């Protein structure tokens, strides 16, 4: 009993230590954890897309898609708080900067791998493909389904994924013309692709 208590105490100490490490990490990067939805509104009202190009693909200012892969949140924040001319300083608060960092970091769907869900999971004929991103869904995501028939490849063709009520999820209808072993492919951004095998009943 006594030994069990000691183990519990050790576990608690470990958990506390882990928590404090996490806390220290958050404190060292005050610009992570912002609200992407607030950032999106701020981006729109500040007219950022004018200089950084439609869809943030680059213009007078640099491309911002995928910026989270090139810079840390603190580095992105520094670019916003102390910009190089001709970009102006908009005088954003730290909270606003964190929101902007959150939004910009998710422009290409976020750093995490998107989750692909097919409804119904065992379709015969038409199904809905739902793709949930960890960040803001990219504007160029597409889906197609294909199956091999001997040496032939049957495919639906690429269909754009549309916005849904969930801000992280895109969706499109896909029609499976015959039973068999299909592959549902999702592609977005600069060459990212996810393949999901799917058995379609006859």
């Amino acid at each position: 009993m006594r030994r069990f208590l000691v183990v519990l105490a050790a576990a608690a100490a470990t958990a506390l230590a882990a928590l404090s490490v996490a806390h220290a990490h958050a404190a060292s990067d005050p610009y992570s954890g912002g609200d992407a939805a607030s950032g999106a509104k701020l981006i729109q009202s500040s007219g950022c897309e004018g200089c950084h190009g439609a869809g943030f693909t680059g213009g007078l200012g640099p491309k911002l898609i995928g910026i989270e892969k090139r810079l840390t949140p603190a580095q992105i924040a520094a670019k916003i708080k102390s910009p190089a001319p001709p970009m102006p300083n908009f005088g954003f608060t730290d909270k606003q900067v964190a929101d902007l960092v959150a939004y910009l970091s998710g422009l290409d769907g976020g750093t995490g791998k998107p989750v692909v869900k097919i409804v119904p999971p065992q379709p015969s004929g038409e199904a809905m493909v739902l793709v949930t991103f960890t960040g803001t869904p990219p504007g160029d995501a597409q889906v197609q389904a294909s199956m091999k028939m001997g040496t032939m490849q049957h495919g639906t063709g690429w269909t754009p994924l549309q916005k849904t009520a969930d801000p992280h999820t895109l969706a499109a209808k896909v029609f499976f013309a015959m039973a068999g072993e299909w592959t549902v492919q999702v592609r977005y951004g600069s060459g990212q692709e996810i393949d999901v095998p799917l058995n379609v009943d006859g």
Partner: protein
Amino acid sequence: MADRLTLSRGAVLLGGVSLAAAMSVRRLSPLQAPAAASEAVEVTLTAAPRLFAPFAGISYQGLAYNGSIPGPLLRVRQGQRLRVRYVNRSGGESTIHWHGMILPNAMDGVPNLTQPPAPDGGTFLYDFVPQPAGTRWYHSHVFPQLIKGLFGMIIVEDPHDEHADQDLALVFHDVAKAASVDAAMRGISTAPMVDPFGSPERRAMGPEEKMGDEVGYAAHCINGASYPKTAPILVRVGQRIRLRILNANPTQTRYVRLAGHTLRVTHSDGNPLPQPVEVEALRLGAAERYDAWFEVNKPGAWLLQGLSADPMAFQQAVVVHTPGMEGATPLGSAQSLEGVRSFTYELAGAAQALGTRPRVERVDVRRSYVLGGGRYGSERWTMNGEVWPNTAGVIVRRGDRVEVRFTNKTDMHHPMHLHGHVFEIVEIGGRALRDPLPKDTALVDPNGGTMTWRFRADSPPGRWLLHCHNEIHMMGGLMTAVEYR
């Protein structure tokens, strides 16, 4: 003796060059040179085609006075005579209208109403004493030459004006998409709405409403250039700066902010306000001007911006900086008016409670106009159901006190302009203004908005146009005239 002067293309810098600057030994900023001291100022303005490319990827076949868009900045002293020899090489008939001036009717520049237009290759002599003092402008009155670039600012200096350390002329203008102008003329506009978030135009819309603008614009400029190529304005700590701002856009209202500063507005359309108004943003309907002052209290760099929700709105900006801050990051403003104190007629005129009436005074001629039309697919914009030239005019005798009331039944603002007079706004939306506002152009609110003007018919006799300064609405018929009998 008159100074004789012809502005050459080489003398024109960024759309702003004064008559004096071309003659003076001392090199003066093209934005702020004072007028020459002489009995008369003579100038030749030549209109001709010009390729205009203010921003990478934007190249536009426009029209320019003396090779410059905007045309040269003209400055005259109050009482000086102005003789402008107009040489028309625009490729079509043309005139110059002197917007905001009280002048002989034959000098007003309305084709086939006050003068025969100058034919292509022809000339016309404009000869008058510019008055009243203030920030005025000049532009072609032949469609679509204003849209293509035939406009410029003229300042009539008032010797009694308060001293400014710098007096800067800033013309805000835009490059229209030709296809959208054509579509707008057929009543089938597809341009997105670009009024800034938080503007009265946006607030009037429901959340799901998708209203569009008539004309879309490909580029936005100040004095002929787009940011970051606009020429920076150098200011010094302690200076009091006067900005004379014109919205030369042919259809859109423009909001203007200087980051980090409030603006003290002293004049509207060149006319002194009853009292100065302190605001964070100006609101300029098409053809309106404001004189706005600011003080430089500390070193820095700030953006003076035209605000809109257009993705390319950032182009309409210029850096204002103190010495040594040339390369510094300028402080900018969001393209939004949420929580921003903007100039309004009601603020400047101390609007009273709803239901109040303008003060009782003798009125000899009363006229009411319902502004209508503008239905999708129709090019008609009407006054009391008629389009120009079938609209009923305002018939006056010299000396009459005149009241004109507008009720705007359309869903767009109308910047109504009266030639050859300064009127006073005495009522807006059922609220009397305690301090009537002297103007020559005023935005009438949409969706049932009302506005009442009063003026004395004491200008030189003739026919003075009264019309919407949105070029599309004007061409669609929203025009009448005040006629002296």
